[in-house]
């Protein structure tokens, strides 16, 4: 199978993630969509790594995972505290500041 | 290394500004007066230094004298270069003369509020006012001295800030809707001038990109010996950039609309500072920078600018006639006069330019005299509306008399300073552009109209109710007015010393531009033709 197809898949996933961020309301889902984007990147990286025949891409993928994990820690902390304050996970409810 | 007189002349008011601002707030009449006398002394000191500069200046010496040169920001080729030519000397002197009078005239404009128990409001308003005036003076002086484009630009822009606070913070209307008007005027002043300055900044940067220096002397030298050449597009663009800023400041029609607001809302003293001192930086810079840096473009655009000037002369005068507010009337009169100054500058004849330079001085002194007396009048009634006054000459004859003399100077009565300059400007323009010269002379009639109408409405006729209590000029006010009037007389009767100072620099500027006065028609080539036609006519 042509490895380039993986790139298409990666792009598709990335786009799905991005669109998900735009259309979903729940902060957690939103955040999951971001994670999907990161993983799409990982897929692309690994694919390129395979194409180029060097390991850089794969190593980067590991870094990405770690970063994503760190993001989860911070992100969930923030989202949960907001949830506890507002009893809502909808990002559309957090719009006190505008204009 | 000689004594850096120019730096000192600019630094003294700057130091004075800082010291004045640092004075403790007044607690009694004594300390209040101290807070005003200190800045006054500094301004007088500056006047002395200005006189020293004038005395040391040799009209037929080098182009720029008493020069100082220090590297400032070498990365951008910026240096702290000072030097004065004839025009600079004269304008520094004008600034030095006018500022003490402005201070004296504004003596009570920023007094601390005293409540019923005699307690002084504790703030630094008084000091602030005088410190700002000194700051403006310092910046104006250094702008007149700068021979580095960048250095000039810096102070050209920076002086907006103290001016802004002077206009916005100390107008004669303090409450409610009126205060809004005042801050509107201040903001308009600042933004308008800032816009001009920023456009100039673009041009300044463009200039540097081409020349890689900001030194006026090096650029003009390079232009003259041919080692530097602007493409005509670049030169035109740069000229317009510079000119825009100066035309806003000067102000040239149709960029003048900030001036009536600013002068209308400011105290009379500050209004004088705006029109008589600060705005002169604009016309000064046209002569010093526009003409010298961009001779070709100056020639290209001269006709257009002349037309705008003439429009400004007539437009300003007509609008002055239509004003209901004394200070706005003076502002429009000034717009008309600035039209004359710019007309003289861009006529590119030595008469026109010398006239313009004298005009700057005369306009400064005459407007100061006229407007300060008007200010004394307004301070008595707290109104700026012409309609509120009438018959004042009956109750305050000296005030009426001085007001009339100031007005006569404004309308360029021969024997007073402005006549000399106005006539030179007209002659200078007429030499090259007869039609414009003739149209501009209509300004003479209109000037008489607005001056005399104002005088008639405020001073003559039966005493209007409310004016009975208008007292005549007090000693302090006479001290302000009398020397200004004397100066106007001297400048009108014997302007030669000033003319002798400015003439050489005018000639140098024109020769740098490769311009010379058109010879009288009756010389060499023309004479034969002339005789034959006349012969035929007889």
């Amino acid at each position, binding site marked *: 199978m042509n490895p*380039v197809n993986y*790139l298409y898949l990666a792009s598709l996933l*990335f786009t799905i993630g991005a669109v998900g*961020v735009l259309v979903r309301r729940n902060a957690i889902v939103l*955040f999951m969509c*971001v994670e999907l*984007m*990161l993983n799409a*990147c990982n897929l*692309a990286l690994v*694919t*390129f790594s395979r*194409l*180029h025949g*060097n390991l*850089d*891409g794969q190593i*980067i993928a590991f*870094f990405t995972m770690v*970063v994503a994990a760190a*993001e989860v820690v*911070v992100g969930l902390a*923030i*989202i949960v*505290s*907001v949830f*506890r*304050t507002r009893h809502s996970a909808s990002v559309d409810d*957090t*719009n*006190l*500041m505008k204009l | 290394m000689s004594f850096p007189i120019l730096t000192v002349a600019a630094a003294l008011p700057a130091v004075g500004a800082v010291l004045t601002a640092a004075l403790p707030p007044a607690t009694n009449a004594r300390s209040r007066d101290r807070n005003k006398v200190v800045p006054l002394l500094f301004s007088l000191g500056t006047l002395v230094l200005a006189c020293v500069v004038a005395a040391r200046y040799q009209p037929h010496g080098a182009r720029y004298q008493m020069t100082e040169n220090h*590297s*400032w*920001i*070498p*990365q*951008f080729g910026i240096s702290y270069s000072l030097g004065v030519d004839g025009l600079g000397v004269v304008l520094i002197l004008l600034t030095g003369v006018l500022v003490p009078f402005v201070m004296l005239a504004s003596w009570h404009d920023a007094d601390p509020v005293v409540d019923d128990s005699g307690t002084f409001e504790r*703030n630094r308003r008084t000091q602030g006012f005088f410190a700002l005036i000194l700051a403006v003076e310092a910046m104006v002086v250094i702008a007149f001295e700068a021979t580095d484009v960048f250095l000039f*630009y*810096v102070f050209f*822009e*920076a002086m907006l800030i103290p001016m*802004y606070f002077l206009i*916005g*913070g100390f107008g004669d209307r303090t409450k409610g809707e009126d*205060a809004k008007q005042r*801050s509107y005027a*201040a*903001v308009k002043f*600042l*933004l308008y001038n*800032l816009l001009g300055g*920023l*456009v100039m900044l*673009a041009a300044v*940067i*463009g200039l*540097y*990109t081409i020349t890689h220096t900001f030194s006026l002397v090096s650029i003009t030298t390079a232009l003259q010996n041919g080692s530097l050449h602007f493409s005509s597009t670049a030169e035109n663009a740069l000229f317009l950039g510079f000119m825009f800023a100066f035309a806003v400041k000067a102000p040239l029609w149709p960029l003048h609309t900030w001036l009536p607001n600013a002068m209308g809302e400011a105290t009379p003293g500050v209004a004088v500072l705006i029109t008589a001192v600060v705005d002169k930086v604009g016309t000064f810079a046209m002569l010093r920078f526009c003409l010298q840096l961009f001779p070709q473009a100056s020639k290209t655009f001269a006709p257009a600018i002349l037309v705008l000037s003439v429009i400004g002369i007539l437009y300003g005068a007509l609008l002055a006639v239509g004003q209901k507010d004394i200070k706005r009337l003076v502002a429009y009169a000034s717009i008309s006069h600035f039209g004359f100054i710019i007309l003289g500058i861009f006529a590119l004849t030595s008469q026109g330019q010398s006239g313009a330079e004298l005009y700057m001085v005369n306009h400064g002194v005459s407007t100061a005299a006229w407007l300060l007396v008007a200010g004394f009048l307004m301070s008595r009634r707290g109104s700026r509306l012409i309609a509120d006054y009438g018959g004042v000459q009956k109750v305050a004859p000296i005030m009426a008399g001085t007001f009339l003399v100031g007005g006569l100077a404004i309308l360029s009565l021969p024997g007073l300073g402005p006549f000399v300059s106005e006539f030179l400007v007209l002659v200078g323009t007429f030499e090259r552009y007869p039609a414009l010269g003739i149209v501009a002379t209509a300004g003479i009639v209109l000037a008489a109209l607005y001056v005399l109408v104002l005088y008639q409405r405020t001073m003559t006729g039966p005493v209007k109710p409310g004016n009975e209590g208008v007292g005549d000029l007090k000693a302090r006010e006479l001290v302000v007015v009398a020397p200004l009037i004397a100066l106007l007389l001297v400048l009108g009767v014997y302007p030669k010393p000033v003319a002798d100072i400015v003439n050489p620099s005018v000639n140098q500027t024109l020769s740098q531009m490769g311009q010379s006065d058109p010879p009288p028609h009756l010389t060499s080539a023309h004479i034969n033709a002339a005789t034959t036609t006349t012969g035929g006519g007889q």
Partner: protein
Amino acid sequence: MTCMTLAAAIPPISAPHIEYLQLSPMLAVFGAALVGILAEAFVPRRHRYAAQVGIALAGLAASFGLILYLAVDGYATNKADLAAMGAVAVDGPSLFLQGVITLVAVVAVLQFAERRLEPRSGTGAAVDAFAPEAAAVPGSDAERRAATSGHATTEVYPLTMFAVGGMLLFPAASDLLTMFVALEVFSLPLYLLCALARRRRLLSQEAAVKYFLLGAFSSAFFLFGLALVYGYAGSVQLSRIADVVEGRATITPALAQTTGNDALLLIGLAMLGVGLLFKVGAVPFHMWTPDVYQGAPTPVTGFMAAATKVAAFGAMLRLLYVAFPGLSWDWRPVLWGVAILTMVAGAVIAVTQTDVKRLLAYSSVAHAGFILTGVIALDRSGLGAVMFYLAAYSFVTLGAFAVVTLVRDADGEATHLSRWAGLGRRSPLLAAVFALFLLAFAGIPLTSGFTGKFAVFQAASGSGATALVIVGVLSSAVAAFFYIRVIVVMFFSDPRADGPTVAVPSPLTGAAIGLGAVVTVVLGVAPEYFLHLANQASLFVR
């Protein structure tokens, strides 16, 4: 046993060499952060404040000292290195920007440590601007208890240290991976710091959520861009990318599908750009700025506004100047558009703002546009100009936000512009200093803002971007309007009877404001030395 055989089968790994000395500025800060965490765990609560502030300042001081040492050692002038296997560049721009960031961080830490502004807690303990207990629900009993007992979130110091560490690394990163990691390292603590305001916690939390979600979103773009560029060049080393882009490296024909595919490269560059433009707050990636600036605790806003911008522009400069100068024909026009849009939109939208912090946020957007004009110059003068601008801008920003912390009423800071009416009459000195900062923002001569603006416009003009300069100049005029408006409100409006008071700060905030003012004036009046420094440092190592 198996281990042994495996080890024998794999070719020996050469141990990576780490130049500890060259990395030491970052290590010092990260070390301080770690020590801070330990202190959080082991130092008794009543000593934590002092300990944390001490540790943070010590770490920053050490870091700054080491930066100076490296600079004096010649790293900024006649030598440069790629440390840590080519991951970190130690060169002029790195050191200059790191120096600025550490100084900014010092000032920020001083402001974080300010405890005189908030009224004392029930127990009489002095408290700072941060939430007493971040985990407690706003308005809950737990929070009230924490507040009365004078608790404080001393975690902010280690968090700050991590952020600073990331910021130090960001402009020095010379491969995309390091850049990405640094981006995250400094972003994540900032998300948290945003959420920690003592007052108006709802706004603070909202700011954190918005910042976090959008930040993560932009990181994803950055990462995607990284992947694409990696796909094109086969490496994430900036210098290697440059080689491939400029055709110096040989390309395996088999990889023509990817390596030869410029679309990958261009889209990748664009995606990287999204990540960086988000951080600098360029239009249309700026929308987080006003909300986050408004919601975050003001000292954090100041820190963020100043330091993030320095770090992010540093990284952008390195990326564009080192990796993609060969693509300048492609990215410059795009950046032109972004710069124009940023300058104009920032200035225009700010005109109608009524909240001081939001106003400063839009002002920072406009300034991002001005700085971009210098970036576009793509030469040494542009680099030097941008670095100078960043230094000048960051101190003005810090000072301005520090002033904002002092204008307070019963509900904490009074940030609505109408509340500032007549401030100039009530406390002329503070108002004058704030006016100075505003004038510097507006680019009035004799302030640092003018020198910076002049430098970047001059660089842009020198590279032929005259139109950009003109747009910049015109939007400066528009921008001037709203700075002036604040001055009008402060000086020319009558004070309100119920107006805010100006708190008397401790020397900490005083120092921050004072330093800001001094730098503003010095860089405006006598910028020679600092311009020289910036110009000297303006050479990237490849």
